[in-house]
């Protein structure tokens, strides 16, 4: 039976979104000026004409949009002048997600995204506005209704997740364009005002470090707070529903997001521990899903934060098809291997001390600056050293029908689970010392858009070759 859903009229606004700053706001600003001061700028009539034209096209595009669900396929028709019709076999769907922002709540609409593996990373294949009732109906047709186990997570746990996944860089990426655009729109030098404010605050703080360090620290702290708050409100009210076939995730405070995907679409599961989570001994469990998009890349957080034992129990319960019971290959725990795992952190620490001392001797004027940078770098090196030691103790690789690998990736501890068939590339890396000690590093890359990878170090070369031959039937 064919069921066709039409788009919600609010989709017209979606089509107008690219013209918001270049056309819509200037027209509104011009009209306000005209009403307030009886003054019309030279290009207002032209802008208004263009706006009416674009609005007409947007309305026609919204009216020509439709989604049809047949027995085994989904057809998406769109376009007014440039018509396009896409047919997707339902078995090829990776995930569907719906998002409701305050405007959607007001107009009873939903932003619906349909994702397949063919999509570009971080961008859904099809994104449209539906009526709330239609969205629920479509979701039910695509994924059915099964008995589900519901899991909720406290705000404290979400705060820990947000703390662990936030970064000052993300905050800068999110915040700077908003400040620039708002400044342009209001006709104010907003970015200069913010910088002056930061300059003033940093001037009042007296530390052993030079003022530039204070300024950078304040900028990074503000950026991190922006990133934290964004992540916190995005993940707040996190709710996970699991059944035998599918996973449904709901989250968001201002903007409510709902994502559904079949368990079979999961490419790999990662349990990760970021540097901030390490002191709390907490991990997060996330899944990489083929084609899952819309801002989060294709990574869906399954359990925001929890102890490794708790996460493993959930994993065994819901993703048992990815479990492996084969004995893993590990690096031998002996003095030689401790040396081999820790030689890089030792080298970096030595370099840091040498470069800092030499720099202070050559540039005594910058001593406090060098001291600050050297201390920060030493902190990172010590953390890296502790990770290297952990890699020696817990780094392992298990190759069978399912793959399991544990090690650190940059500064994050990672345990990766996936099916044998989803492994894209296997790299065996041997440096001169590796050849001398008959060891190797094995790098596995998962065949998905996010291409999660993991490298396990200092494994016995002969054992690795034998296991790869047995598992992948590849003669190395």
């Amino acid at each position, binding site marked *: 039976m064919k069921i066709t859903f039409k788009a919600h009229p609010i989709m017209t606004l979606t089509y107008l979104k690219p013209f918001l700053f270049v056309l819509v706001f200037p027209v509104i600003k011009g009209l306000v000026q005209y009403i307030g001061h009886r003054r019309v700028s030279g290009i207002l009539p032209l802008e208004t004409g263009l706006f009416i034209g674009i609005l007409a096209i947007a309305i026609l595009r919204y009216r020509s949009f439709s989604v049809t669900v047949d027995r085994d396929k989904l057809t998406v028709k769109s376009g007014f002048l440039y018509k396009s019709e896409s*047919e997707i076999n339902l078995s090829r769907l990776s995930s569907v997600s719906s998002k409701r922002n305050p405007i959607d709540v007001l107009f009873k609409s939903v932003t619906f995204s349909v994702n397949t593996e063919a999509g570009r990373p971080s961008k859904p*294949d099809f994104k449209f506005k539906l009526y709330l009732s239609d969205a629920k109906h479509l979701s039910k047709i695509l994924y059915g209704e099964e008995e589900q186990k519901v899991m909720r997570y406290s705000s404290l746990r979400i705060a820990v997740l947000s703390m662990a996944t936030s970064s000052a860089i993300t905050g800068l990426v999110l915040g700077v364009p908003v400040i620039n655009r708002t400044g342009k729109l209001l006709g104010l030098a907003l970015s200069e005002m913010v910088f002056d404010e930061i300059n003033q605050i940093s001037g009042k703080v007296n530390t052993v470090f030079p003022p530039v360090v204070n300024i950078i620290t304040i900028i990074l702290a503000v950026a991190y707070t922006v990133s934290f708050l964004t992540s916190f409100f995005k993940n707040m009210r996190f709710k996970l529903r699991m059944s035998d076939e599918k996973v449904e995730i709901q989250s968001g405070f201002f903007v409510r997001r709902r994502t559904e995907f079949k368990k079979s679409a999961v490419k790999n599961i990662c349990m990760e521990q970021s540097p901030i989570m390490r002191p709390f001994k907490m991990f997060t469990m996330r899944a990489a899903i083929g084609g899952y998009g819309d801002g989060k890349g294709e990574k869906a957080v399954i359990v925001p934060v929890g102890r490794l034992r708790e996460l493993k129990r959930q994993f065994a319960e819901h993703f048992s098809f990815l479990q492996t019971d084969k004995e893993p290959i590990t690096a031998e725990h002996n003095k030689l291997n401790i040396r081999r795992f820790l030689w890089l952190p030792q080298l970096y620490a030595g370099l840091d001390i040498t470069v800092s001392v030499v720099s202070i001797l050559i540039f005594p004027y910058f001593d406090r600056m060098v001291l600050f940078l050297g201390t920060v770098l030493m902190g990172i090196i010590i953390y890296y050293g502790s990770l290297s030691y952990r890699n020696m103790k817990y780094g392992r690789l298990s190759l069978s029908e399912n793959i399991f690998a544990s090690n650190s990736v940059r500064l994050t501890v990672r345990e990766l689970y996936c099916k044998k068939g989803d492994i894209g590339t296997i790299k065996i890396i041997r440096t001169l010392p590796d050849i001398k000690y008959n060891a190797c590093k094995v790098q596995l890359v998962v065949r998905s858009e996010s291409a999660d990878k993991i490298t396990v170090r200092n494994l016995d070369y002969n054992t690795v070759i034998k296991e790869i031959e047995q598992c992948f039937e590849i003669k190395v």
Partner: protein
Amino acid sequence: MTSRLPEKTLILWQIRFTAVFVCLIGVIAFFIRFSLWTLLPIAFLAVLGAIFILWFLPLYFKSFIITVDDTAIKVSRGVFIKLTNIMPYPRLVFAQSFSTPVARKFGLCGVTLRAARGLLVIPEMEKDDAKVLLDGLSGGTV
């Protein structure tokens, strides 16, 4: 099953490129002062456009061979450099048809086949042929 692109596709693309070249020449003519030296690039562009539209495009569209068999869809094309794209059915995620107002007047529509991290574009073909291809691919019957 092996097929080629219809003659109408060539005409459609000749119309499109002619429009582009005419616009380009029009824009250049609008911004320059006419003299023998300035007319030279326009004439050069016109000759280049004529060669491209009347000689290269017919050869290029003639070279298109679309083969649909039990395992994959193959598209071969190229005048100077021959290129063959093969998309096995298990790799195909979804198929998409597209058409512009002029293409619709000719009764043509193009097809895009999307795979994970890849796509294959087949230029405008007869609407009915495209429909058969799309139905077969999305229903998994091809």
